[in-house]
């Protein structure tokens, strides 16, 4: 038997494309005579458009159409901005302005340069209303919304009693700022109408089916008449999980201009038009007994949302399940602001919530004089404290052990400001990380063609996680074909439907679907051979047959073989194929499922100048079976880099007076660059989990982000004795306060 491909660190199957620039993204698909569309944004944060003047733009050279709310085509499903399912999409249907940079017009011209300039010629007069730009400017208005994104208010035990009984207590407030996804590929849509009621969208999305469903609804088209294609997505991190205004606007612009239209958002537009991580203000109370066992946790979160949507950054989800504690109360409230609506951002809720919880735990450890790692071990949740269910698998203790060993945790002095290296103060910090793991239903199709090779298809997406590669590995193993003989196709709604590439559940959802389809196809090939008098395997029992290298053989006599090509050839069909729908694994209901990990940071800080250097970042993670250690490690280091950004750099700033974004580009919105990132150390803790799904996969794209910011903040405390509760940790916050003269 050949050793399986699943579990081996093969190079990406799309690697060659990616290093030669051959893969194309949504704005790069070649379309003859394509026109270019540019969005014009509002310059007030709330109010009404009194007048909009498109004449100069219309008269500009090369302009084909200028669409405003006066002349936008009306579609049955595109409602006013306050109502309807698709209220987060602004499609030029009325004169209402709900946030700065909201689309108020779209200009279509024959070249990009002409469209860009003409867009600056559209002017508008407004009736502007006052705006609220920050949650803390309107805290009394915070409310618990009615939304399915819950539970938003939970309790178990008696928190007051738990706190009263506690020997050590912590009561602190943490803040995380607005963060913006800023994938490197700006959101883009190329829209092509085929006649009046068919539309193809090449869209930079993490969720082709989602785009099809939403757009067909908005445009009043039959879903099967909308085709969404995205073979490569240049990063999304949540911001491409659902269609935003520009997708609809591309379709509208194409309709209005009678041309195929390409619409790529500008980097400034990405700061406002495609969602963001909302600011959070998180109050945490912890109580612990003398030995450090948690007696109470209270976690109150206020986060921002827009006037027209109810988005909740679910910070408390982690708090409810991470530690064993009998008494717990959590609440999530939101404040409506005059801002575009927030959305899911890599490790939504977990990364922000974990920063607060894991910082608070560090504070508790210091208050109680207990080693922060020891404190976490003591409060380890052996089963899910929220549901009472057992974990399908959990290797957190092993993660702690291995990462602690790697970073030499035992030599960390408990007292802050102890380790000095020249100008630098050095400190170590720890945090736990976790992410729930989900499996969604998914379909897949497996086909063996006349030449004996296979094409396996699912309407999933490649967002950089390695979907092409791991699905190919899964299919090769299940079909007993070598690597070069399986082509995996994705990113097209013409293929069997698969879930969005969000929430780190692609491998755990579409992986099993691909596996099952391939297993079924293999079975079909076997049946075909058994039933075919011309096959050398004719008449054998199915379980007497195995497969290798694109051929079936009799287990009892390996020389009795029938190649796939021969089987297909004799079938008189061009191919033999199976399409299968796979539901979430039944066993899952009996368990709580999640990935866990431990992150340790070592920082050095120059207090005089406030400079911080991240020396080391070590993460140990366990997330079920690892399909490909190479791509898995990439996912994990990517998540850690996001954590570094959250800890040290990322901060979108709105002008307090107008609610307009001030940090409008990548020079002002800082994300980590090469020089900020040391060689990250990833330890993969193997885990064999029979309960999650056929493949034992949990998914790990977001697991390594939560915890990093807290580990760094905790290391900063260990180094300097300064507790930073307000991200990001910038030089001004690290500078030793000037001594009074």
């Amino acid at each position: 038997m050949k050793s399986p491909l699943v579990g081996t660190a093969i190079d990406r199957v799309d690697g060659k494309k990616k290093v030669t620039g051959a893969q194309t993204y949504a704005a790069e698909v070649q379309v003859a005579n394509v026109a270019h569309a540019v969005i014009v944004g509002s310059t007030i944060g709330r109010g009404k458009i009194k007048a909009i003047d498109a004449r100069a733009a219309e008269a500009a050279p090369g302009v084909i159409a200028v669409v405003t709310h006066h002349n936008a085509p009306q579609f049955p499903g595109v409602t006013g901005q306050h109502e309807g399912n698709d209220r987060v999409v602004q499609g030029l249907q009325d004169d209402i302005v709900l946030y700065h940079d909201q689309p108020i017009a779209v200009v279509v011209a024959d070249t990009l340069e002409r469209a860009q300039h003409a867009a600056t010629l559209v002017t508008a007069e407004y009736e502007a209303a006052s705006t609220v730009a920050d949650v803390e400017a309107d805290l009394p208005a915070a409310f618990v919304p009615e939304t399915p994104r819950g539970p938003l208010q939970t309790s178990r035990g008696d928190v007051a009693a738990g706190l009263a009984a506690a020997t050590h207590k912590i009561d602190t407030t943490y803040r995380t700022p607005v963060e913006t996804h800023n994938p490197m590929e700006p959101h883009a849509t190329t829209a092509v109408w085929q006649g009046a009621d068919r539309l193809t969208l090449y869209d930079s999305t993490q969720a082709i089916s989602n785009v099809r469903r939403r757009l067909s609804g908005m445009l009043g088209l039959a879903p099967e008449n909308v085709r969404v294609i995205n073979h490569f997505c240049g990063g999304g991190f949540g911001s491409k999980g659902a269609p935003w205004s520009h997708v609809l606007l591309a379709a509208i612009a194409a309709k209005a201009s009678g041309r195929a239209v390409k619409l790529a958002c500008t980097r400034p537009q990405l700061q406002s038009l495609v969602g963001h991580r909302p600011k959070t203000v998180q109050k945490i109370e912890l109580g612990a007994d003398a030995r450090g066992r948690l007696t109470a946790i209270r976690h109150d979160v206020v986060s921002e949302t827009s006037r027209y949507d109810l988005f909740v950054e679910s910070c408390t989800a982690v708090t409810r399940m991470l530690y064993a504690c009998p008494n717990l109360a959590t609440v999530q409230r939101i404040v409506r602001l005059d801002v575009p609506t927030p959305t899911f951002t890599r490790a939504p809720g977990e990364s922000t919530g974990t920063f607060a919880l894991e910082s608070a735990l560090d504070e508790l450890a210091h208050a109680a004089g207990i080693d922060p790692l020891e404190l976490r071990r003591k409060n380890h949740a052996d089963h899910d404290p929220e549901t009472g269910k057992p974990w399908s698998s959990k290797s957190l203790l092993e993660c702690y052990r291995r990462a602690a060993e790697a970073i030499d945790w035992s030599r960390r002095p408990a007292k802050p400001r102890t380790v000095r290296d020249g100008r630098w103060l050095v400190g170590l910090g720890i945090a736990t990380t976790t992410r729930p793991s989900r499996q969604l239903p998914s379909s897949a199709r497996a086909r063996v063609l006349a030449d004996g090779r296979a094409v396996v298809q699912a309407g999933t997406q490649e967002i950089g996680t390695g979907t092409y590669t791991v699905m190919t590995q899964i299919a090769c193993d299940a079909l007993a074909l070598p690597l070069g003989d399986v082509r995996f196709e994705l990113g097209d709604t013409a293929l069997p439907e698969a879930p969005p590439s969000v929430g780190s559940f692609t491998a755990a959802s579409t992986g099993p679907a691909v596996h099952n389809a391939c297993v079924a196809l293999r079975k079909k090939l076997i049946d075909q051979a058994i039933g075919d008098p011309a096959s050398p395997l004719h008449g054998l029992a199915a379980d007497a047959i195995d497969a290798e290298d694109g051929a079936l053989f009799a287990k009892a006599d390996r020389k009795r073989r029938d190649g796939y090509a021969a089987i297909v050839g004799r079938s008189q069909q061009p191919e033999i194929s199976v399409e299968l729908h796979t539901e979430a694994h039944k066993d899952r209901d009996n368990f709580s499922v999640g990935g866990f990990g431990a992150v340790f940071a070592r920082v050095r800080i120059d207090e005089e100048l406030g400079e911080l250097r991240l020396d080391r970042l070590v993460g140990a993670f366990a997330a079920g079976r690892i399909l490909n250690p190479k791509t898995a490690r990439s996912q994990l280091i990517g998540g850690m880099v996001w954590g570094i950004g959250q800890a040290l750099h990322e901060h979108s700033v709105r002008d307090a007076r107008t609610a307009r974004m001030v940090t409008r580009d990548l020079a002002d919105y800082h994300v980590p660059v090469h020089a900020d990132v040391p060689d990250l150390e990833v330890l993969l803790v193997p885990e064999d989990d029979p309960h999650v799904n056929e493949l034992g996969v949990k998914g790990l794209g977001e697991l390594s982000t939560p915890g990093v910011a807290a580990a760094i903040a905790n290391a900063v405390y260990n180094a300097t004795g300064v507790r930073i509760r307000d991200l990001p940790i910038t030089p001004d916050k690290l500078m030793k306060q000037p001594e009074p003269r």
Partner: protein
Amino acid sequence: MSSMTTPIAVGMVAPSFALHGDARRALSSSEARGRPWVLAFVRRWSPGADTEAIRAELRGLGAILFIVSDAGVWSFRPDDDLELSIAPSRQLRREIAALGARCGVGTRDDGVLVVDDAGIVRFAHAPSSELTSSLADALDAAGRELLGLPTRPGITRRDWAVMSLVAGFGLVLFHGCGGRGTEPAAPTTVVAKPGTEIEVVLRINGQDRRLKIDPRTSLLDALREHLALTGTRKGCDHGQCGACTVLRDGHAVNACLTLAVAAEGAEITTIEGLARGDRLHPLQAAFIEHDAFQCGYCTSGQIMSAVALLREGRSKTDDEVRQQMSGNICRCGAYPNIIAAIQAARKEV
């Protein structure tokens, strides 16, 4: 020469057809119901190198294409593999002849028929034999007709056809007209008035590419929008991300902040110009080996910067390499692997 016997005129209802040959399933015009379609008689065509160009044209038309050739019959959609084909047979030849007769295309002639989504013929063309050598080009002509665009001034259809033979790619030609000079513009004062186009010759990956562009066009947009060299990415358009990095005379620069006209006379290398045929540049190979990318959007820029870095040879330690590479943002966070790849490739470059 074309010989339209009963010319199908623009404005008429298109003929419906079903071609069976010896196949079980027919290939028929009803597949296209409700969307535009193109029926092309191209006798010498077989699936090959012009597939991408044809796809681009079809996307622009939003159409399905039926190709009738000596090698069989195909139905073709822009984003699918060849959907359905019917192998030649005597039966098929008879059906084709009948269909050709209804369309006014003789049995040895080429011709194109474009039908809109309401089933009305919008374009009927039985072009000369040179023209049909490039199906993409014929489709381009059809597309222009459909969109009501003027033919580019100063260029006759015949010129077009000849040039498309050279380039084999209608899309490129749209902007790349006017012969193939190799002399860079003379170093005298060049003037382009606002709003006028300017002719430039860019030397890209060792080839001279002649373009007529708006002087506002950046080198990046010239590559991406005019030359179909989309491997150079646009991440910010303001010098802040490095996705657009190309080599200008061997040095890494941001193509987004470079005016295309100002790049005349320089030797530009893009990611497409790095590999030698199938042989990857050592950095490209190292990027694969070290998994130095995830979504791949920053990758071209990272590699081009790294090529320049190794060529200069100044940065050696990991920290030096990190500093010099810091103009290339990777939002997926592949940084450690990128550094590893560069250090590994150093030995081979």
